């Protein structure tokens, strides 16, 4: 199929960006969206032009690197799918596709479609972990955990930190990400000792990074490639209220 691509090009964080239009031909419907970009980039390199910079790593939907805003949708039109798992059969011959980077104050554009998601790392550093002694792996079943709890924690842990929630939110809020990272630990006994400081510090860091606040529109849940539930945001709110009202420091 042949397509018209309008792609955001920006030299670096400080440069003024703009859309460039490219025509691509002979795109197979079985190609992934990133493979289509590979084809275009090969051509640009052969023509001696600067290829389009975009993030990617595993290309199997689990690393959370690919981050394209495609025709107004984070990771494109398919639900529960990352950009690398979006295939060209989602489009028709002759379509015009507009591709933009994630847009958020906290995710500055590094180049073209690549953004700096370091803000997420700093939120995790603020409390998205449990403190354990290293050494041999502990027996997985040393602490019995009911199946439904384990499943709920795992569903939250499915978050790959891709930033689609921030990209999809009209407020560039990171609440779905932070709530997933709090929820995966809040539902397990291992998360209990650092429960209060985790919620307080991660939320404080989230605000410091310049993400917006949540207005419960649900756009994050609709766009999340891992289908993280909004109920996690409610849990984060509960954790934060509990810590704020009871934690002594």
């Amino acid at each position, binding site marked *: 199929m042949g397509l018209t691509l309008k792609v955001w090009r920006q030299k670096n964080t400080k440069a003024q960006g703009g859309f460039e239009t490219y025509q691509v031909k002979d795109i197979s419907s079985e190609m992934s969206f990133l493979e289509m970009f590979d084809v275009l980039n090969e051509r640009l390199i052969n023509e001696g032009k600067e290829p389009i910079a975009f993030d990617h790593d595993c290309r199997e939907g689990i690393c959370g690197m690919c981050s394209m805003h495609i025709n*107004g949708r984070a990771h494109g039109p398919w639900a529960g799918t990352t950009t690398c798992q979006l295939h060209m059969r989602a489009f028709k011959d002759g379509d015009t596709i507009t591709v933009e980077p994630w*847009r958020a104050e906290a995710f500055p554009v590094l180049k073209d479609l690549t953004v700096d998601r370091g803000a997420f790392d700093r939120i995790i550093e603020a409390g998205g972990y449990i403190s354990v002694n290293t050494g041999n792996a502990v027996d997985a079943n040393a602490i019995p955990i009911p199946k439904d709890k384990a499943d709920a924690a795992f569903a939250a842990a499915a978050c790959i930190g891709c930033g689609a929630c921030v990209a999809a939110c009209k407020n560039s809020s990171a609440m779905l990400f932070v709530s997933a990272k709090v929820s995966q630990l809040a539902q397990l006994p291992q998360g209990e000792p650092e429960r209060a400081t985790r919620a307080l510090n991660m939320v404080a860091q989230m605000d410091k990074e310049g993400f*917006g606040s949540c207005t*419960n529109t649900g756009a994050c849940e609709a766009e999340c490639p891992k289908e993280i539930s909004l109920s996690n945001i409610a849990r984060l709110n509960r954790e934060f209220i509990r810590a*704020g009202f009871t934690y002594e420091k």
Partner: protein
Amino acid sequence: MKWSQFFDTSIGKKLLVGATGFFLCSFVLVHLAGNVQLLYNDGGKAFNSYAAFMGHNSLIQFIAWGLKIVILLHAIIALQLTFSNRKARPVKYAINPGNQTSSWFSRQMAIMGSILLIFIIIHLADFWWKFHFGNVPTINYEATGEPVKDLYSTVQFAFKEGWLVALYVIGMIGLSFHLIHGFKSAFQTFGLNHVKYNGLINFIGVWLFGILIPIGFAAIPVVIFFK
């Protein structure tokens, strides 16, 4: 985390917006229950004695002043959040998903809230100010009783103006759209999200607060206008 820090976080501010929002929801219920008396054909006896009671009871006066502070708090904090949310996305998208990923109501909270705030200011200037500080004629229903201010007739007279009736209907459309999302959103902010109750919360938010109550309020000026 100190209280001052807690309520300065994004979630802390949202909790204040949600708590004040809940208080305002309870207010609209009481306000509508009282205002329905404007539709009685009793020459205003019920409504005027109710207004006199509300205007003189010190506990109610205390709550009434609290209410004005709550409205201001709700509006100021929500606007503050709205502006910081705008700042969180300095470069806009060329293409937006519209209603594909979120409901239209959920994205218009600030606009509907602003319409409501303007409406409330006009509404207070129209009746509350007049009742307390303006010239409202008095009426005596019982030979031995105290004369009461005839707010009933003032209202009946005011709503003969078509433009004012239209303004009130617009204000109530603002209330409707604001509460269709606002009511359930406040529950989510307080962490009250539970499969067993979400359906009920959504139903009450949409049908009672989003539709029935605004229609009830809007019906009063409309009925008086056509009476």
